[in-house]
């Protein structure tokens, strides 16, 4: 770029500055900065004037004021005497709860449907396809409304609840499950669980070394499964099962005891999982199909057994294609959980950007905090993505 063959130009003649790319870029960028700055100053000035006119003082002092409203589902202690800051935490935890469980359920359904889509069985493949085409072409909000207003709100009342055994009850007020009550000595079981996980990781590493050195291998997968689930179970039996179950019992018009899952949560969780699963299924299908058939054939030619062909050749390569769009679907699910506000599930947007905003009028602070939460989640996920991409990227020779 910097080499100019045109030396026939008379000495001392310089081209005008707007012909110089570097100077032009500089001027253009300065103009951009000036325009953006002017725009921000204009907005900030207006906002200050408007806030003064409405008598709202800016700042985050309101976070320590008493909230004075109740919330239907709280994972940590909360009462209407708690502060607005507490409502932020409650909302955030509820968002993360429905997001986390949604990601789990959507992945399970999505992987099953995606693999079923590739089944040699014509009927199963068509059913999976019908699932995908139905649910991904209907707006999520409509699906949430369907589950909430058309299904869960039309369930029978508490007295006529649908009972599954004498332990699980479903009615218009929600789903009632037995709650485990841990007695003293139960702490041993999670501790054993962690020890078992560490032990099986060690086993896997040892087995890999031994395999590389001697060519001999143990069925580590089944062995670690036995260790991870068998050991805690053994401890559970030895300590005499220090758990009792508190059953939900009908008292008057409603159930008491046990765990209550509110219908808003159920509707949101079902709709998010089913909707996102249809996208995940497509991602899984295209990921598996992206692996050229020659890879499988080459692995078979090396006389790898079918199980190892999948585990060592197809799945690692398919995951490289699947993981990036999969994480962006997870991100979409967490962002879409904000639709909770339409049915009143107390998530971050509904509690904090809804009730708290309306009560305090601190629109700017509240919206900024809410957006910051989602931005931080997105940023963390995209950082993970970049790290993952760098790790699995093909090293071309």
């Amino acid at each position, binding site marked *: 770029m910097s080499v100019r063959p045109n030396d026939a130009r008379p000495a001392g003649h310089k081209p005008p500055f707007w012909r110089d790319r570097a100077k032009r870029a500089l001027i253009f960028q300065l103009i951009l900065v000036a325009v953006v700055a002017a725009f921000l100053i204009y907005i900030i000035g207006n906002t200050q004037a408007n806030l003064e006119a409405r008598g709202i003082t800016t700042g985050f002092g309101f976070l320590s004021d008493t909230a004075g409203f109740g919330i239907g589902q709280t994972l940590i202690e909360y009462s209407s005497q708690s502060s607005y800051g507490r409502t932020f935490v409650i909302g955030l935890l509820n968002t993360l709860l429905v997001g986390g469980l949604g990601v789990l359920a959507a992945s399970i359904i999505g992987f099953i449907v995606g693999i079923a889509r590739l089944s040699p069985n014509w009927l199963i493949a068509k059913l999976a396809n019908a699932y995908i085409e139905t649910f991904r072409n*209907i707006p999520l909000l409509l699906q949430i409304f369907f589950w909430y207003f058309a299904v869960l709100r039309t369930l029978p009342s508490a007295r006529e609840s649908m009972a599954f055994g004498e332990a699980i009850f479903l009615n218009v007020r929600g789903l009632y499950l037995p709650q485990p009550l841990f007695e003293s000595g139960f702490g041993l079981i999670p501790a054993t669980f962690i020890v078992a996980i560490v032990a099986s990781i060690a086993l896997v590493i040892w087995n890999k070394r031994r395999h590389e050195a001697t060519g001999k291998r143990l069925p580590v997968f089944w062995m670690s499964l036995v260790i991870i689930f068998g050991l805690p179970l053994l401890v559970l039996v030895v300590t005499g099962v220090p758990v009792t179950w508190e059953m939900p019992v009908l008292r008057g018009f409603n159930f008491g005891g046990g765990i209550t899952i509110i219908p808003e949560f159920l509707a949101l969780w079902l709709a998010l999982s089913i909707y996102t699963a249809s996208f995940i299924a497509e991602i899984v299908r295209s990921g598996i199909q992206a692996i050229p058939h020659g890879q499988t054939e080459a692995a078979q030619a090396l006389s790898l057994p079918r199980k190892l062909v999948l585990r060592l050749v197809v799945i690692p390569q398919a995951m490289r294609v699947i993981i990036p769009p999969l994480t962006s679907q997870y991100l979409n699910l967490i962002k879409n959980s904000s639709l909770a506000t339409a049915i009143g599930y107390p998530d971050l947007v509904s509690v904090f950007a809804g009730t708290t905003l309306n009560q305090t009028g601190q629109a700017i602070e509240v919206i900024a905090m809410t957006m910051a939460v989602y931005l931080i989640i997105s940023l963390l996920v995209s950082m993970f993505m970049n790290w993952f991409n760098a790790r699995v990227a093909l090293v071309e020779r």
Partner: protein
Amino acid sequence: MIHNKDMIPEQPAPKGTIGPIGWLRGNLFNGPINSLFTLLGLYVLYLLLVPTIQWAFINADWIGDSREDCSRVGACWVFVNARFSQFIYGLYPSEEYWRANIVFAMFAGIIAWMVIPRLPFKRWVTVFALLGFPVVAYVLLHGGYFDLPRVSTHRWGGLMLTLLLASVGMIGALPIGIVLALGRRSNMPIVKTFCVIFIEFWRGVPLITILFMASVMLPLFLPSEINIDRLIRALIGLTLFQSAYMAEVIRGGLQAIPKGQDEAAAALGMTYWKRMGLIIMPQALKMMIPGIVNTFISLFKDTTLVMIIGLFDLLGIVQAALSDSRWLGFSIEGYVFAAFVFWIFCFSMSRYSQYLERKLNTGHKQ
């Protein structure tokens, strides 16, 4: 030594490998596990389809004008029938429906013209769709010109509003998206940073917080004399949201063009804008169409969120109709109708984008 000099006559394929039975064996009953899956699938299908068909067609009531005409055994399509014009036009005055109908017809005509490959003058139709049609549609729907009575935007609703929000969001987002995508690929550091921040911000937050921001914070940002219509506020939010996604699709298309194209154009002495406008964009835009259609499908589904800030799009008006005391208890019918309409639009668009992908996949790609 050949013992048999006669040709063996052609034999038919073994029984059970051809025809319907062969197909069944090959695709549904090859092996015990597969047979089990087939039976399971048939059972699921039976459980789903039989009650659905009975509810939606056999036991359904179609004709009438009040809830008394419904037997309540099956679906009550009377409800959808009675509310149909509201679902399509919202609260638009019924004597002015013809205006909305003209816009609908023009919209359908433009889409048909673009989709059918044989029709000529595609470029001019595109220009009209992007520049002329919005003006014509605004004049017709809003009125206030040429003796057309004014219909204020809070009466707009139903499918009309859904299509309007999606189309305006799309048409507005396209130029912003192009600028952002070019900016993100630019080698001017400030421009690039600015575009990256802009794109990642809008992509990182949920649409609903953007709509909240547009409805709560936009009035704070502007001088108090200016009062923006609620519909316009929603449109601004939707357009900015969509433009960030559009920018990423366009960037993907630009990356698919080999660098040699740009270098060859530069070697011919073309300026940046000529290279982009005459060489890169025409090739890239063609490749982007499937991606653009896909983002349009998401936008189309996302327009349902405007009901949360108080606009009555198709879902909003269905939801409002469901709370009418004369028609309580028909939520399934209402949702099924809305779902059906959305599904038809989204499914046909996704099929169109798949068709385009196949058509464009002619080996040009790197």
